[in-house]
């Protein structure tokens, strides 16, 4: 790290030139007020961008282990069932989203024998494209979500962890367990500022053939984005709307606030 960068208040910004700029920066994690060298970046900026990209690249290859100290207490207390898609390696997972949307045959069997069908709510946890997001956010969010759902009188199915998971796996879960609603907590593609951003995809009675137009999304769940309790409230509000209108998708506008113009996580 260069000397200039060592004093930065925020990890992703080079040191400010003066106190005034520092206060301004507190309103956004975006890399504003960088200064310039000609029309290039200052050296500290150039190298910081490289360092953050390196960290994001390396975060992709983290493997979630439910017995890892960060997840074991949660995994044991909730008796989380680990299953997998047909993408059997990280390389396949990245290159073949079609396989990541389908449960492996063995997983379907394991779910049939290990989970109760027809629940009000089925929660899935998927590694997606950022295992680090799951490790960081799910132990905080999941217990609140379960408690909130139960407080609203919803029956909650056994929690599933889906390895090499794409969003479309929602449909397969719908086919196998026929829950009324499914919530998928999945790691978003890692950004430069954070590799810890989680998305919640929500679907009402998902079935084979459903697309993103049938789903709702709360993205950017992380420390500088949507907070855990806010996310839980928004998920529960959506579920209430689904129940009321007997559908999910883009025709459901968020009660208190899916998707942006672009989806953050491919289906």
């Amino acid at each position, binding site marked *: 790290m260069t000397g200039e960068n060592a004093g930065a208040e925020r990890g992703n910004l080079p040191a400010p030139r003066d106190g005034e700029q520092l206060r301004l920066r507190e309103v*956004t994690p975006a890399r504003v007020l960088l200064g310039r060298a000609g029309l290039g970046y200052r050296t500290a900026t150039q190298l910081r961008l490289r360092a953050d990209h390196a960290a994001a690249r390396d975060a992709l290859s983290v493997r979630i282990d439910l017995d890892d100290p960060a997840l074991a207490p949660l995994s044991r207390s909730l008796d989380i069932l680990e299953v997998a898609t047909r993408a059997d390696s990280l390389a396949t997972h990245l290159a073949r989203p079609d396989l990541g949307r389908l449960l492996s045959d063995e997983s379907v069997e394991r779910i049939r024998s290990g989970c109760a069908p027809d629940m009000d709510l089925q929660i899935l946890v998927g590694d997606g494209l950022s295992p680090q997001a799951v490790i960081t956010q799910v132990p905080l969010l999941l217990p609140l979500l379960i408690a909130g759902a139960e407080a609203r009188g919803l029956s909650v199915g056994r929690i599933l962890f889906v390895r090499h998971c794409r969003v479309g796996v929602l449909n397969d879960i719908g086919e196998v367990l026929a829950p009324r609603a499914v919530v998928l907590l999945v790691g978003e593609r890692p950004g430069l500022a954070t590799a810890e951003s989680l998305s919640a995809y929500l679907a009402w009675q998902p079935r084979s053939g459903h*697309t993103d137009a049938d789903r709702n999304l709360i993205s950017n769940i992380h420390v500088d984005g949507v907070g855990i309790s806010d996310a839980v409230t928004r998920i529960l509000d959506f579920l209430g709307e689904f129940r009321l209108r007997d559908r999910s998708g883009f025709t459901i506008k968020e009660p208190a606030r899916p998707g942006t113009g672009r989806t953050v996580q*491919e289906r």
Partner: protein
Amino acid sequence: MTFRTTLRGETFVFADLRELFGRANEPKSGDQLAGVAARSERERVAAKIVLADVSLGEILDNPMIEDDVTELIDRDRDVELGTTIRGLTVGELREMILAPDFVGMWADGMSRAITPDIAAAVTKIMGARDLVSASAPLRVTTSLRNTMGETGTFGVRIQPNHPTDDIAGVTLSVLDGLLFGCGDAMIGLNPASDDVGTVIELQHALRAVVDRVGAPTQTCVLAHFTTQLAALGRGAPIDLLFQSIGGTEQTNRSFGVTLDALVEGREQVLEHHRTRGDFLGDNVMYFETGQGSALSAEAHGGLDQLACEARAYGVARSFDPFLVNSVVGFIGPEYLADSRQIMRAGLEDHFMGKLLGLPMGCDVCYTNHVDADQDTTDQLLILLAVAGCNFVMGVPGSDDVMLNYQSTSFHDAAGARELLGLRPAPEFEAWLESVGILSHGRLTDGAGSGTTSLPLLGAFPELGS
């Protein structure tokens, strides 16, 4: 109709046009995923050789997919002028496009005789330098609050995204971009939330910043178009109506879009503009596209991703858009695997869009799970600037902190302008000169977040400075 050729003693057979199109593409992971790609390099070139001899009439007479997009494209094309090129082969069309007198024919209406299928076909047999050289003279100028696309201009959309749509944060990113001379294409925010109330607030906030500094440009909050229209109904100022579109009816359905609803939305925005002032033109639509979106929605119908993308442009041109943006590296490695594929796709999309008469821009970008980096965007940015691209994105420090990917930065865009002698839109340039960000066409010493820029920031007390 079956196509076949023998190359170096080996015979290659292609069952129909659709198969031939897929096999003739440059390598793309998405075509492999869809099972339509060439299975060897020899087969790829054999397909190109066969395609070069296919007549445009053959392509016009045999739509590869039947849906409402095909119907729209068919309604929208110049049939009469089309008959004059029916006898040409794809290979002959390539040579016609590269000839110096093509720009005149194109401007006289040939762009409307060329269909998306034809544009895709000829693109498959063009090299990278072809794609750049052929695009450069094809200028598409549109107007809304300013004019975009004139020869020598290079526009920049400020993309001031924020993970929680915080208005002070968004405002600071907008000002940071303006201070680099960016923002002539638009101030276009991707909201984290699609809630109507939030979108209304953001629309008002963007308009307030632009009005306060007096910059002649348009604003856009890129929520789903139905949300933008709901916001319009509740009094939000809408300059541009944004929507992501794809090249098949099914893809559009997966985006929650029907063509009829888009037509109706456009009418509503035009009507709204008649009640507001300061519009120079009526190009009110802004579309985003990208190779792979149809496959991602499992809606490609066996068509390769280049052909699907061209069809999306067929949709776009029927709406006379202000700008169209191929978000080329956003979709991920399963569609464009690496730096090489992203760069090729960016050049293809820009060329096809221009050939079809669109005000084409490009979000030169990559995600962190694809084999690409900042050098990729540096290279594609320069190539597209040379190719006459209408606009690119300007993201603070290239890092989109809401969508989690890297695009081009304010530095990148301003640097490309200076390197190649390109300028902002004329009305916007005059404003930049008037506020001292530019002087005689060059960024002043204080511009670009230098110390003298702080007085301008100081006029925004909500930023807490």
